[in-house]
């Protein structure tokens, strides 16, 4: 018979998944009723969110304990690598849907709305991008690329460097470099988020650029908004990893938790480059 460390790890029965399901049920029903005018729905939504956070903390705590307890062998490690890679691929496809909407509007639907056939209906519509829509008369100013967005590009690209530097520290078993690199990465991520929030406020107050600003506003806010959400999640993941590093977790030859988060961080970085080029710049 194979010993425990050689055999593939299969977890004991777990109650965490059912907490997650209860959380999502509560969030979905709460959000649906809140959106349709039943105010207490928001408490149902937030209760669900609280259960979800409780579940995530408990579940990942169990994973960290199992990992440090030496229960994940090489084969389990490879599973995690495949799993994370395919998860990131699914995220890529999620963003692809919104990029697809952006390209469709810029290249097809907005020009169509300004063509000769529509002139009778909307004689004044100027279909050059950035455009809102022929039925919307509220003027707006598009977001300039070379101010805060360029700075944010610099911040995120640097954070990609610092997280790699932290990884080198981990590989050399230099804990100081590891923790310093992670702290820097988190700081850069938080700075990015701060600028992003400021940019949104500026857009609403000074540029009259809103979620309701037609094609440009919808694609701008949903693409940057979902990216911002992913940076937020990534930053929380990095903080978790920092906490684990401070607790002495991870070894040079056993640290997929760190690497998975670093992969995720690089993915968020690459999405931003796409955003910077196609949403802000071109």
């Amino acid at each position, binding site marked *: *018979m*194979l010993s425990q460390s050689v*055999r*593939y790890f*299969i*977890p*004991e*029965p*777990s*109650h*965490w*998944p059912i907490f*997650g*399901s*209860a959380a*999502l*049920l509560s969030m*979905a*029903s709460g*959000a*649906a*009723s809140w*959106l*349709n005018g039943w105010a207490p729905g928001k408490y149902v939504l937030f209760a669900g969110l609280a259960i979800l956070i409780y579940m995530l903390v408990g579940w990942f705590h169990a994973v960290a304990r199992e990992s440090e307890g030496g229960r994940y062998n090489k*084969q389990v490690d*490879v*599973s995690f690598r*495949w*799993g994370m890679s*395919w*998860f990131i*691929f*699914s995220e890529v*496809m*999620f963003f*692809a*849907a919104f990029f*697809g*909407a952006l390209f*469709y*509007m810029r290249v097809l*639907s*907005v020009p*169509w*709305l300004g063509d000769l056939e529509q002139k009778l209906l909307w004689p004044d519509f100027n279909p050059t991008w950035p*455009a*809102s*829509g*022929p*039925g*919307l008369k509220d003027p707006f100013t598009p977001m300039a690329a070379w101010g805060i967005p360029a700075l944010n590009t610099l911040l995120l690209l640097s954070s990609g460097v610092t997280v790699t530097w932290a990884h080198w520290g981990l590989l050399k078993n230099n804990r100081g470099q590891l923790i310093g690199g992670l702290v820097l990465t988190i700081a850069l991520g938080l700075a990015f988020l701060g600028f992003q929030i400021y940019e949104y406020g500026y857009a609403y107050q000074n540029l009259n650029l*809103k*979620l*309701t600003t*037609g*094609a*440009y*506003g*919808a694609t701008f806010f*949903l693409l940057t908004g979902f990216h911002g959400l992913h940076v937020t999640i990534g930053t929380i993941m990095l903080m978790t990893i920092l906490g684990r590093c401070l607790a002495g977790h991870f070894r040079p030859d056993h640290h997929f938790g760190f690497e998975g988060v670093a992969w995720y961080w690089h993915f968020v970085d690459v999405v931003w480059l796409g955003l910077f080029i196609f949403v802000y710049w071109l």
Partner: protein
Amino acid sequence: MDAAHVHNGHGAHGHRNTGLMRWVTTTNHKDIGTLYLVFSLTMFFIGGLLALGIRAELFQPGLQFWQPEFFNQLTTMHGLIMVFGAIMPAFVGFANWQIPMMIGAPDMAFARMNNWSFWLLPPAALLLVASFFVPGGATAAGWTLYAPLSTQMGPGMDLAIFALHIMGASSIMGSINIITTILNMRAPGMTLMKMPLFVWTWLITAYLLIAVMPVLAGAITMLLTDRHFGTNFFNAAGGGDPVLFQHIFWFFGHPEVYIMILPGFGIVSQIVPTFSRKPLFGYSSMVYATASIAILSFIVWAHHMFTVGMPAATQLFFMYATMLIAVPTGVKVFNWIATMWKGSLTFETPMLFACGFIFVFSIGGFTGLVLAITPVDIQLQDTYYVVAHFHYVLVAGSLFALFAGAYYWLPKWTGHLYDERLGKWHFWLSMIFFNVTFFPMHFAGLAGMPRRVPDYALQFADFNMISSIGAFGFGLAQLIFVYAIVKCVRGGEKAKDKTWEGAEGLEWQVPSPAPYHTWETPPVIR
């Protein structure tokens, strides 16, 4: 190969809960497979009841039972529940039960996440079913949720959107698990090109799911923000376009229909060789054909929307790309027939369903080719011809393959042989009533009867009456299936480890019923 016997009966992985908590907390792939299968069977009957509601109304022209709004809710929810609640979870149930046993793995790669993949489904189903009871009722926009209809529906639409989000998360997690299991958990010597075809088809299906479920999530998120947060993705006045929704939806939707049929191809490819007592003809061409279908599925989506208005060159591209799919599909059909050719054939229930599948699915494939022709499609768009076509591939395709697989592996799962007489009754009644229901729809559609309308011109009355009689017969025949399963679970003739004399594969080397843990020590494949 005796490893499984040695380990029989003792759980090396700690305790197992009893009663309800066993099923809520389980991390065992067989338990979770059973949960998926029971869930999908339940949803199959709920979706089936909705279908009978549709057919009752259409039994005669004029309005008999439902208001038109409720009729549209019935068609919409029938589609959503059958696609996301019945067919997809059933195939995932088969994957959970069979893939670890067929590749010699001790369990799924992520056993705990596997539990969550399943337990996300009941809340989602609850949201869907509950949406009938909110003000305005369930969504009535059709299962495709086309804007601007879907941007104008009541709260039921929001519940459907969130239910789809949750089911999408379940599918993505399930698929990541299946891909990882197949890529990383195979027994030594089980090279990719030695894998059973069911495993291959699921590998490719899981890839499709991970690629397109997030796209659906994006589409319905845009729907949600258009509905409640003032975005204009699908509103021309705001620079958007309702057709944009159709493009994004069908970029998901076309691979989705192959998600629902490829594992069925896999099941049939296991069954036909067993009852022909010959190896599968053209194994590697089957693998390449499956992969080709998957790749082509990404570049044919606009054939669902030929009538919305698009450049002729685009129509031509999508028409030819669609027709191209007939090539790998034809490869499969000919391979199955070549496998049977000069085989020592017997026709137990799994083989009956597999042969029925090949015959009736091919008819659905041919009507698909007819619909692929743009000028023809412009006549047939949104008629009952389309309804006939996709029920031929989804009911006689996916569902018959699921029935075939259920009868094929039930002895392995329960340790008992099912009642062959009941199985044969189930097959013949299903086969006959299926065709009684759906074959006349071709004629109704060719004559111009539109779908999703509760009333119709008198000229369609006879066809509809026949269809409705067939539908109720088909529905009742499914009760035989439930009875056959219950009977088989409760007892019956003891099944041998290798239930079918012509069967090949690792699942037949473990005892029947399969012990709670199999292949804790991996077999070595020569």
